[in-house]
Protein backbone atom coordinates (compact mmCIF):
# COMPACT_ATOMS: atom_id res chain seq x y z
CA UNK A 1 0.00 0.00 0.00
CA UNK A 2 2.71 2.43 0.99
CA UNK A 3 5.10 1.53 -1.82
CA UNK A 4 3.73 4.01 -4.34
CA UNK A 5 3.16 6.99 -2.05
CA UNK A 6 5.34 10.06 -2.35
CA UNK A 7 7.42 11.12 0.64
CA UNK A 8 8.40 14.61 1.69
CA UNK A 9 12.02 15.32 2.74
CA UNK A 10 10.81 15.13 6.35
CA UNK A 11 9.32 11.62 6.19
CA UNK A 12 12.03 10.08 8.36
CA UNK A 13 11.57 12.84 10.96
CA UNK A 14 7.85 12.07 11.26
CA UNK A 15 8.42 8.35 11.61
CA UNK A 16 11.12 8.93 14.23
CA UNK A 17 8.68 11.13 16.16
CA UNK A 18 6.19 8.28 16.19
CA UNK A 19 3.73 9.96 13.83
CA UNK A 20 0.78 8.03 12.52
CA UNK A 21 1.31 8.18 8.75
CA UNK A 22 -1.64 8.14 6.35
CA UNK A 23 -2.16 8.50 2.64
CA UNK A 24 -3.19 11.97 1.52
CA UNK A 25 -3.31 13.06 -2.12
CA UNK A 26 -0.82 10.36 -3.05
CA UNK A 27 1.60 11.28 -0.26
CA UNK A 28 2.49 9.57 3.00
CA UNK A 29 1.77 12.28 5.55
CA UNK A 30 1.66 12.56 9.35
CA UNK A 31 -1.95 12.77 10.54
CA UNK A 32 -0.98 13.04 14.20
CA UNK A 33 2.00 12.73 16.56
CA UNK A 34 1.08 12.88 20.24
CA UNK A 35 -2.63 13.43 19.63
CA UNK A 36 -4.89 15.71 17.58
CA UNK A 37 -6.32 17.66 20.51
CA UNK A 38 -2.88 18.19 22.10
CA UNK A 39 -1.40 19.37 18.80
CA UNK A 40 -4.36 21.64 18.06
CA UNK A 41 -4.16 23.28 21.49
CA UNK A 42 -0.39 23.65 21.23
CA UNK A 43 -0.81 25.71 18.03
CA UNK A 44 -3.45 27.94 19.65
CA UNK A 45 -1.42 28.49 22.83
CA UNK A 46 2.23 28.31 21.75
CA UNK A 47 3.57 27.19 18.36
CA UNK A 48 3.32 24.14 16.12
CA UNK A 49 5.26 22.94 13.08
CA UNK A 50 3.55 21.49 10.02
CA UNK A 51 5.24 19.71 7.13
CA UNK A 52 3.19 20.79 4.12
CA UNK A 53 5.84 20.00 1.52
CA UNK A 54 3.28 18.03 -0.45
CA UNK A 55 1.71 21.27 -1.67
CA UNK A 56 2.48 22.52 -5.16
CA UNK A 57 4.54 25.53 -6.25
CA UNK A 58 4.40 26.73 -9.85
CA UNK A 59 6.41 29.64 -11.27
CA UNK A 60 4.86 31.91 -13.88
CA UNK A 61 7.45 34.13 -15.59
CA UNK A 62 7.58 36.61 -18.45
CA UNK A 63 5.88 39.75 -19.66
CA UNK A 64 2.59 37.89 -20.00
CA UNK A 65 2.67 36.08 -16.66
CA UNK A 66 0.52 38.61 -14.85
CA UNK A 67 -2.18 38.52 -17.50
CA UNK A 68 -2.14 34.69 -17.54
CA UNK A 69 -2.64 34.55 -13.80
CA UNK A 70 -5.26 37.32 -13.80
CA UNK A 71 -7.22 35.25 -16.31
CA UNK A 72 -7.02 32.07 -14.22
CA UNK A 73 -7.80 33.76 -10.90
CA UNK A 74 -11.01 35.35 -9.63
CA UNK A 75 -9.14 37.82 -7.45
CA UNK A 76 -7.17 40.90 -8.49
CA UNK A 77 -3.65 39.71 -9.36
CA UNK A 78 -2.84 43.01 -11.12
CA UNK A 79 -3.25 44.87 -7.84
CA UNK A 80 -0.38 43.01 -6.12
CA UNK A 81 2.87 44.70 -5.17
CA UNK A 82 6.28 42.98 -5.07
CA UNK A 83 6.43 40.91 -1.91
CA UNK A 84 2.67 40.56 -1.57
CA UNK A 85 0.47 37.43 -1.45
CA UNK A 86 -3.09 37.00 -2.75
CA UNK A 87 -5.66 34.30 -1.84
CA UNK A 88 -7.85 33.44 -4.80
CA UNK A 89 -10.14 30.88 -6.36
CA UNK A 90 -9.29 29.38 -9.74
CA UNK A 91 -12.54 28.67 -11.56
CA UNK A 92 -13.74 26.54 -14.45
CA UNK A 93 -15.84 28.19 -17.18
CA UNK A 94 -19.06 27.32 -15.31
CA UNK A 95 -17.88 29.29 -12.28
CA UNK A 96 -17.11 26.23 -10.15
CA UNK A 97 -13.88 26.06 -8.19
CA UNK A 98 -10.93 24.13 -9.65
CA UNK A 99 -8.71 25.02 -6.66
CA UNK A 100 -8.09 27.72 -4.11
CA UNK A 101 -4.54 29.03 -4.23
CA UNK A 102 -2.08 31.71 -3.18
CA UNK A 103 -0.35 33.99 -5.69
CA UNK A 104 3.05 35.36 -4.63
CA UNK A 105 4.38 38.33 -6.62
CA UNK A 106 8.19 38.34 -6.77
CA UNK A 107 8.22 40.96 -9.51
CA UNK A 108 5.99 42.16 -12.34
CA UNK A 109 7.30 39.25 -14.45
CA UNK A 110 7.78 36.58 -11.78
CA UNK A 111 5.02 34.98 -9.73
CA UNK A 112 4.58 31.75 -7.80
CA UNK A 113 1.23 29.98 -7.57
CA UNK A 114 0.90 27.77 -4.46
CA UNK A 115 -1.76 25.09 -4.89
CA UNK A 116 -3.26 22.20 -2.95
CA UNK A 117 -1.41 18.89 -3.19
CA UNK A 118 -4.61 17.20 -4.33
CA UNK A 119 -4.97 19.58 -7.26
CA UNK A 120 -1.36 20.13 -8.32
CA UNK A 121 -1.41 17.98 -11.46
CA UNK A 122 -4.86 19.26 -12.39
CA UNK A 123 -3.84 22.92 -12.08
CA UNK A 124 -0.54 22.42 -13.92
CA UNK A 125 -2.54 20.96 -16.83
CA UNK A 126 -5.21 23.66 -16.57
CA UNK A 127 -2.70 26.49 -16.50
CA UNK A 128 -0.83 24.88 -19.38
CA UNK A 129 -4.02 24.87 -21.46
CA UNK A 130 -4.66 28.51 -20.60
CA UNK A 131 -1.16 29.93 -20.85
CA UNK A 132 -1.22 33.40 -22.36
CA UNK A 133 1.49 34.79 -24.63
CA UNK A 134 4.95 35.62 -23.23
CA UNK A 135 4.44 33.32 -20.26
CA UNK A 136 6.67 30.50 -19.09
CA UNK A 137 5.44 28.07 -16.49
CA UNK A 138 7.75 25.99 -14.28
CA UNK A 139 6.45 23.43 -11.78
CA UNK A 140 8.97 23.32 -8.92
CA UNK A 141 6.78 21.36 -6.50
CA UNK A 142 8.99 18.28 -6.56
CA UNK A 143 12.03 20.31 -5.47
CA UNK A 144 10.32 22.53 -2.91
CA UNK A 145 9.69 21.85 0.76
CA UNK A 146 7.32 23.89 2.90
CA UNK A 147 7.21 24.12 6.70
CA UNK A 148 4.43 26.08 8.38
CA UNK A 149 5.24 27.61 11.78
CA UNK A 150 1.96 28.63 13.40
CA UNK A 151 0.89 30.05 16.75
CA UNK A 152 1.34 33.01 19.10
CA UNK A 153 5.04 32.20 19.63
CA UNK A 154 5.82 31.54 15.98
CA UNK A 155 7.64 34.80 15.36
CA UNK A 156 9.82 34.43 18.46
CA UNK A 157 10.72 30.92 17.37
CA UNK A 158 11.63 31.91 13.81
CA UNK A 159 13.63 34.88 14.99
CA UNK A 160 15.69 32.56 17.19
CA UNK A 161 16.64 30.31 14.25
CA UNK A 162 19.99 30.91 12.58
CA UNK A 163 18.76 29.17 9.41
CA UNK A 164 16.39 32.07 8.82
CA UNK A 165 19.40 34.36 8.92
CA UNK A 166 18.93 38.07 8.23
CA UNK A 167 15.24 37.55 7.37
CA UNK A 168 14.60 37.33 11.10
CA UNK A 169 14.94 41.10 11.47
CA UNK A 170 12.31 41.65 8.82
CA UNK A 171 9.66 39.48 10.46
CA UNK A 172 8.65 42.08 13.05
CA UNK A 173 7.47 44.47 10.37
CA UNK A 174 6.11 41.85 7.97
CA UNK A 175 2.35 42.37 7.55
CA UNK A 176 -0.17 39.57 7.06
CA UNK A 177 -0.07 38.28 3.45
CA UNK A 178 3.38 39.63 2.64
CA UNK A 179 6.64 37.73 2.25
CA UNK A 180 10.41 38.17 2.32
CA UNK A 181 13.04 36.38 0.29
CA UNK A 182 16.45 35.23 1.40
CA UNK A 183 18.88 32.37 1.09
CA UNK A 184 19.73 29.25 3.00
CA UNK A 185 23.06 27.63 2.03
CA UNK A 186 23.07 29.73 -1.13
CA UNK A 187 19.63 28.47 -2.13
CA UNK A 188 16.43 30.56 -2.29
CA UNK A 189 14.20 30.74 0.76
CA UNK A 190 10.87 32.51 1.11
CA UNK A 191 9.17 33.30 4.41
CA UNK A 192 5.58 34.49 4.14
CA UNK A 193 3.23 35.62 6.84
CA UNK A 194 0.49 33.26 5.81
CA UNK A 195 -1.11 30.12 7.19
CA UNK A 196 -4.09 27.88 7.55
CA UNK A 197 -4.74 28.07 11.28
CA UNK A 198 -6.00 31.61 11.91
CA UNK A 199 -3.16 32.22 14.39
CA UNK A 200 -0.21 34.48 13.65
CA UNK A 201 2.17 32.30 11.68
CA UNK A 202 4.58 31.88 8.84
CA UNK A 203 5.24 29.51 5.98
CA UNK A 204 8.84 28.82 5.01
CA UNK A 205 9.66 27.61 1.51
CA UNK A 206 13.08 25.97 1.09
CA UNK A 207 14.64 23.55 -1.40
CA UNK A 208 14.14 19.92 -0.37
CA UNK A 209 17.75 19.44 0.70
CA UNK A 210 17.41 22.23 3.30
CA UNK A 211 14.17 21.01 4.87
CA UNK A 212 15.53 18.60 7.45
CA UNK A 213 18.10 21.09 8.75
CA UNK A 214 15.44 23.77 9.14
CA UNK A 215 13.00 21.35 10.83
CA UNK A 216 15.67 20.13 13.23
CA UNK A 217 16.61 23.67 14.22
CA UNK A 218 12.96 24.68 14.70
CA UNK A 219 12.36 21.62 16.89
CA UNK A 220 15.51 22.27 18.92
CA UNK A 221 14.99 26.03 19.40
CA UNK A 222 11.31 25.38 19.80
CA UNK A 223 11.70 23.58 23.12
CA UNK A 224 11.71 26.83 25.10
CA UNK A 225 8.60 28.00 23.26
CA UNK A 226 6.59 24.78 23.94
CA UNK A 227 6.81 24.00 20.23
CA UNK A 228 5.89 20.64 18.80
CA UNK A 229 4.95 19.04 15.49
CA UNK A 230 1.33 19.11 14.36
CA UNK A 231 -0.24 16.75 11.83
CA UNK A 232 -2.96 16.92 9.20
CA UNK A 233 -5.62 16.06 11.75
CA UNK A 234 -4.94 19.18 13.80
CA UNK A 235 -4.44 21.18 10.59
CA UNK A 236 -8.03 20.36 9.69
CA UNK A 237 -9.60 21.15 13.06
CA UNK A 238 -7.62 24.41 13.26
CA UNK A 239 -8.72 25.65 9.82
CA UNK A 240 -12.26 24.47 10.50
CA UNK A 241 -12.62 26.57 13.66
CA UNK A 242 -11.75 29.73 11.73
CA UNK A 243 -13.84 28.59 8.74
CA UNK A 244 -11.14 28.43 6.11
CA UNK A 245 -12.32 26.40 3.12
CA UNK A 246 -10.86 22.98 2.41
CA UNK A 247 -10.85 21.87 -1.22
CA UNK A 248 -12.93 18.77 -1.66
CA UNK A 249 -15.22 19.89 1.16
CA UNK A 250 -16.42 23.52 0.81
CA UNK A 251 -14.82 23.97 -2.60
CA UNK A 252 -15.60 21.70 -5.53
CA UNK A 253 -15.82 21.86 -9.31
CA UNK A 254 -19.59 22.30 -9.06
CA UNK A 255 -19.60 24.85 -6.22
CA UNK A 256 -18.98 28.52 -6.96
CA UNK A 257 -16.86 30.78 -4.73
CA UNK A 258 -20.00 32.90 -4.24
CA UNK A 259 -21.76 29.91 -2.68
CA UNK A 260 -18.77 28.72 -0.65
CA UNK A 261 -18.42 31.85 1.44
CA UNK A 262 -15.41 33.31 -0.40
CA UNK A 263 -17.25 35.89 -2.51
CA UNK A 264 -14.69 38.42 -1.28
CA UNK A 265 -12.08 36.72 -3.51
CA UNK A 266 -14.21 37.33 -6.62
CA UNK A 267 -13.60 40.69 -8.30
CA UNK A 268 -16.34 40.91 -10.90
CA UNK A 269 -15.10 44.35 -11.95
CA UNK A 270 -12.00 42.70 -13.48
CA UNK A 271 -12.19 42.89 -17.28
CA UNK A 272 -12.29 39.14 -17.67
CA UNK A 273 -11.32 35.84 -16.12
CA UNK A 274 -12.31 32.20 -16.60
CA UNK A 275 -15.76 31.74 -15.07
CA UNK A 276 -16.60 35.44 -14.85
CA UNK A 277 -19.70 35.29 -17.08
CA UNK A 278 -21.12 32.36 -15.14
CA UNK A 279 -20.52 34.09 -11.81
CA UNK A 280 -22.11 37.34 -13.03
CA UNK A 281 -25.18 35.36 -14.13
CA UNK A 282 -25.30 33.54 -10.82
CA UNK A 283 -25.14 36.77 -8.87
CA UNK A 284 -27.90 38.31 -11.01
CA UNK A 285 -30.17 35.28 -10.73
CA UNK A 286 -29.61 34.97 -6.99
CA UNK A 287 -26.99 32.67 -5.49
CA UNK A 288 -28.74 29.32 -5.15
CA UNK A 289 -26.87 27.85 -2.18
CA UNK A 290 -24.89 29.22 0.72
CA UNK A 291 -22.53 27.99 3.38
CA UNK A 292 -23.96 28.02 6.91
CA UNK A 293 -22.30 27.36 10.23
CA UNK A 294 -24.11 25.26 12.79
CA UNK A 295 -23.86 23.67 16.19
CA UNK A 296 -25.28 20.38 17.45
CA UNK A 297 -26.21 20.81 21.09
CA UNK A 298 -24.18 18.79 23.58
CA UNK A 299 -27.00 16.55 24.70
CA UNK A 300 -27.36 15.06 21.23
CA UNK A 301 -23.82 13.65 21.52
CA UNK A 302 -23.45 13.65 17.76
CA UNK A 303 -20.93 14.97 15.26
CA UNK A 304 -22.00 15.83 11.72
CA UNK A 305 -19.58 14.60 9.06
CA UNK A 306 -18.97 15.51 5.44
CA UNK A 307 -21.80 14.30 3.22
CA UNK A 308 -24.46 13.95 5.92
CA UNK A 309 -27.83 15.23 4.63
CA UNK A 310 -29.33 18.48 5.89
CA UNK A 311 -33.13 18.65 6.04
CA UNK A 312 -35.72 21.42 6.44
CA UNK A 313 -39.35 20.45 7.00
CA UNK A 314 -38.60 16.85 6.10
CA UNK A 315 -37.00 17.72 2.76
CA UNK A 316 -33.33 17.47 1.81
CA UNK A 317 -31.96 21.00 1.35
CA UNK A 318 -28.23 20.39 1.39
CA UNK A 319 -25.32 18.51 2.93
CA UNK A 320 -22.57 18.91 5.48
CA UNK A 321 -19.24 19.99 3.96
CA UNK A 322 -17.15 19.70 7.14
CA UNK A 323 -17.96 18.83 10.73
CA UNK A 324 -16.08 17.95 13.86
CA UNK A 325 -15.80 18.40 17.58
CA UNK A 326 -13.95 21.69 18.13
CA UNK A 327 -11.00 21.31 20.50
CA UNK A 328 -10.95 25.04 21.30
CA UNK A 329 -14.68 25.58 21.73
CA UNK A 330 -15.44 22.04 22.96
CA UNK A 331 -18.62 21.81 20.91
CA UNK A 332 -19.90 19.79 17.97
CA UNK A 333 -19.84 22.20 15.02
CA UNK A 334 -20.26 21.99 11.28
CA UNK A 335 -20.45 23.76 7.94
CA UNK A 336 -23.13 22.90 5.41
CA UNK A 337 -23.97 24.00 1.89
CA UNK A 338 -27.74 24.52 1.81
CA UNK A 339 -30.40 26.03 -0.48
CA UNK A 340 -30.35 29.76 0.17
CA UNK A 341 -34.12 29.87 0.75
CA UNK A 342 -33.83 27.23 3.50
CA UNK A 343 -30.68 28.60 5.15
CA UNK A 344 -32.49 30.60 7.81
CA UNK A 345 -33.70 27.32 9.30
CA UNK A 346 -34.91 25.45 11.21
CA UNK A 347 -32.59 22.72 9.96
CA UNK A 348 -31.78 19.14 10.93
CA UNK A 349 -28.88 16.90 10.03
CA UNK A 350 -29.29 13.16 9.48
CA UNK A 351 -26.87 11.26 11.72
CA UNK A 352 -27.03 7.48 11.27
CA UNK A 353 -30.63 7.59 10.10
CA UNK A 354 -31.83 10.00 12.80
CA UNK A 355 -32.76 13.70 12.29
CA UNK A 356 -30.81 15.79 14.80
CA UNK A 357 -31.68 19.49 15.20
CA UNK A 358 -29.10 22.10 14.18
CA UNK A 359 -28.68 25.56 15.58
CA UNK A 360 -27.26 27.90 12.93
CA UNK A 361 -24.41 30.02 14.30
CA UNK A 362 -22.40 32.89 12.81
CA UNK A 363 -19.08 32.07 11.18
CA UNK A 364 -16.20 32.07 11.77
CA UNK A 365 -16.76 29.99 14.91
CA UNK A 366 -13.54 31.23 16.49
CA UNK A 367 -11.45 34.40 16.21
CA UNK A 368 -7.96 33.83 17.60
CA UNK A 369 -6.50 36.43 19.94
CA UNK A 370 -3.06 36.27 18.33
CA UNK A 371 -4.44 37.70 15.09
CA UNK A 372 -3.02 36.24 11.93
Amino acid at each position, binding site marked *: *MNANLQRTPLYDRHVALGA*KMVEFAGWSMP*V*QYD*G*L*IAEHRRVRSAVGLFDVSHMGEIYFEGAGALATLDNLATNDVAGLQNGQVLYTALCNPQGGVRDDALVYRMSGERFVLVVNASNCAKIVDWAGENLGPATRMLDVSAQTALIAVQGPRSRELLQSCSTIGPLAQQLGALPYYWFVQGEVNGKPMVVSRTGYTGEVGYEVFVPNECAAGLWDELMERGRVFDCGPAGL*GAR*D*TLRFEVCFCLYGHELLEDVSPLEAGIAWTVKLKKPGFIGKEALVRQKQAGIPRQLVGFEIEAGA*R*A*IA*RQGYEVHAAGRRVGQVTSG*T*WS*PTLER*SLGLALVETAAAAGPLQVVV*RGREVPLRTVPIPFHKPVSRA
Partner: protein
Amino acid sequence: MAKIPKDLLYTEEHEWVHFSDDRTEATVGITDFAQKELGDIVYVELPQEGDALQHMESFGTIEAVKTVAELYAPLTGEVLETNHQLQDEPTLVNGSPYEDGWIIRMRVTNPDEAKALLSPEDYKARVAEGA
Protein backbone atom coordinates in the same frame (compact mmCIF):
# COMPACT_ATOMS: atom_id res chain seq x y z
CA MET B 1 3.51 -1.22 18.50
CA ALA B 2 -0.11 -1.78 19.53
CA LYS B 3 -0.59 -3.75 22.74
CA ILE B 4 -2.35 -7.13 22.36
CA PRO B 5 -2.90 -8.81 25.77
CA LYS B 6 -2.52 -12.58 25.71
CA ASP B 7 -5.50 -13.37 27.93
CA LEU B 8 -8.10 -11.89 25.54
CA LEU B 9 -9.75 -12.92 22.30
CA TYR B 10 -10.32 -10.56 19.36
CA THR B 11 -12.53 -9.76 16.38
CA GLU B 12 -11.76 -8.62 12.83
CA GLU B 13 -13.33 -5.27 13.75
CA HIS B 14 -10.72 -4.65 16.45
CA GLU B 15 -12.79 -5.47 19.51
CA TRP B 16 -11.52 -7.55 22.41
CA VAL B 17 -13.48 -10.08 24.48
CA HIS B 18 -12.74 -11.21 28.04
CA PHE B 19 -14.80 -14.23 29.10
CA SER B 20 -15.85 -15.02 32.64
CA ASP B 21 -14.50 -18.37 33.94
CA ASP B 22 -17.68 -20.23 33.02
CA ARG B 23 -17.97 -18.42 29.68
CA THR B 24 -21.53 -17.26 30.39
CA GLU B 25 -20.49 -13.62 30.45
CA ALA B 26 -17.98 -11.47 28.60
CA THR B 27 -16.59 -7.96 28.80
CA VAL B 28 -16.05 -6.15 25.48
CA GLY B 29 -13.99 -3.17 24.40
CA ILE B 30 -11.89 -1.95 21.49
CA THR B 31 -8.22 -2.70 21.04
CA ASP B 32 -5.18 -0.46 21.42
CA PHE B 33 -4.80 -0.59 17.62
CA ALA B 34 -8.38 0.63 17.18
CA GLN B 35 -8.07 3.52 19.64
CA LYS B 36 -4.84 4.64 17.94
CA GLU B 37 -6.59 4.58 14.55
CA LEU B 38 -9.51 6.60 15.86
CA GLY B 39 -7.50 9.23 17.72
CA ASP B 40 -9.02 11.38 20.44
CA ILE B 41 -12.48 10.02 21.32
CA VAL B 42 -15.25 12.49 22.09
CA TYR B 43 -18.49 10.48 22.48
CA VAL B 44 -19.28 6.82 23.07
CA GLU B 45 -22.85 5.87 22.16
CA LEU B 46 -23.72 2.96 24.43
CA PRO B 47 -26.64 0.53 24.30
CA GLN B 48 -29.06 0.18 27.21
CA GLU B 49 -28.75 -2.49 29.87
CA GLY B 50 -31.05 -5.31 28.79
CA ASP B 51 -30.67 -4.65 25.06
CA ALA B 52 -30.32 -7.72 22.86
CA LEU B 53 -27.03 -8.21 21.06
CA GLN B 54 -26.77 -10.04 17.76
CA HIS B 55 -23.40 -11.38 16.61
CA MET B 56 -21.78 -9.01 14.05
CA GLU B 57 -24.49 -6.34 14.34
CA SER B 58 -23.84 -2.78 15.46
CA PHE B 59 -24.55 -2.09 19.11
CA GLY B 60 -23.08 1.38 19.48
CA THR B 61 -20.80 4.04 18.06
CA ILE B 62 -17.55 5.72 18.91
CA GLU B 63 -17.18 9.34 17.76
CA ALA B 64 -13.60 10.55 17.58
CA VAL B 65 -12.72 14.11 16.61
CA LYS B 66 -11.88 13.14 13.07
CA THR B 67 -13.94 10.03 12.43
CA VAL B 68 -16.79 7.78 13.61
CA ALA B 69 -16.71 3.99 14.03
CA GLU B 70 -19.43 1.43 14.69
CA LEU B 71 -19.12 -1.11 17.48
CA TYR B 72 -20.03 -4.66 16.43
CA ALA B 73 -21.28 -7.34 18.78
CA PRO B 74 -18.62 -10.05 18.96
CA LEU B 75 -21.17 -12.55 20.28
CA THR B 76 -24.94 -12.98 20.59
CA GLY B 77 -26.49 -12.21 23.96
CA GLU B 78 -27.75 -9.39 26.15
CA VAL B 79 -26.22 -6.25 27.62
CA LEU B 80 -25.74 -6.65 31.38
CA GLU B 81 -23.82 -3.47 32.11
CA THR B 82 -22.37 -0.50 30.25
CA ASN B 83 -19.41 1.62 31.32
CA HIS B 84 -21.15 4.82 32.41
CA GLN B 85 -17.80 6.53 33.05
CA LEU B 86 -17.37 6.82 29.29
CA GLN B 87 -20.16 9.38 29.25
CA ASP B 88 -17.97 11.96 31.02
CA GLU B 89 -14.56 10.54 30.19
CA PRO B 90 -14.62 9.08 26.69
CA THR B 91 -10.83 9.35 26.52
CA LEU B 92 -10.61 6.39 28.93
CA VAL B 93 -10.96 4.31 25.76
CA ASN B 94 -7.83 5.96 24.38
CA GLY B 95 -5.78 5.84 27.57
CA SER B 96 -6.86 2.46 28.92
CA PRO B 97 -8.54 0.47 26.14
CA TYR B 98 -8.29 -2.89 27.95
CA GLU B 99 -9.07 -1.80 31.51
CA ASP B 100 -10.84 1.44 32.46
CA GLY B 101 -12.00 1.88 28.86
CA TRP B 102 -14.12 -1.31 28.78
CA ILE B 103 -17.40 -0.69 26.98
CA ILE B 104 -20.03 -3.35 27.83
CA ARG B 105 -20.42 -6.48 29.87
CA MET B 106 -22.74 -9.02 28.30
CA ARG B 107 -24.49 -12.35 28.86
CA VAL B 108 -23.30 -14.86 26.26
CA THR B 109 -26.15 -17.00 24.94
CA ASN B 110 -24.21 -18.98 22.35
CA PRO B 111 -20.71 -19.88 23.62
CA ASP B 112 -19.97 -21.72 20.32
CA GLU B 113 -19.58 -18.33 18.67
CA ALA B 114 -16.33 -17.98 20.61
CA LYS B 115 -14.74 -20.35 18.07
CA ALA B 116 -14.93 -17.54 15.47
CA LEU B 117 -12.94 -15.15 17.65
CA LEU B 118 -9.26 -14.54 16.94
CA SER B 119 -6.45 -15.62 19.20
CA PRO B 120 -3.90 -12.93 20.17
CA GLU B 121 -1.51 -14.36 17.53
CA ASP B 122 -4.17 -14.31 14.81
CA TYR B 123 -5.18 -10.77 15.76
CA LYS B 124 -1.53 -9.67 15.72
CA ALA B 125 -1.26 -11.04 12.17
CA ARG B 126 -4.45 -9.24 11.21
CA VAL B 127 -3.08 -5.92 12.50
CA ALA B 128 0.21 -6.48 10.68
CA GLU B 129 -1.43 -7.06 7.32
CA GLY B 130 -3.26 -3.74 7.52
CA ALA B 131 -6.57 -2.61 8.98
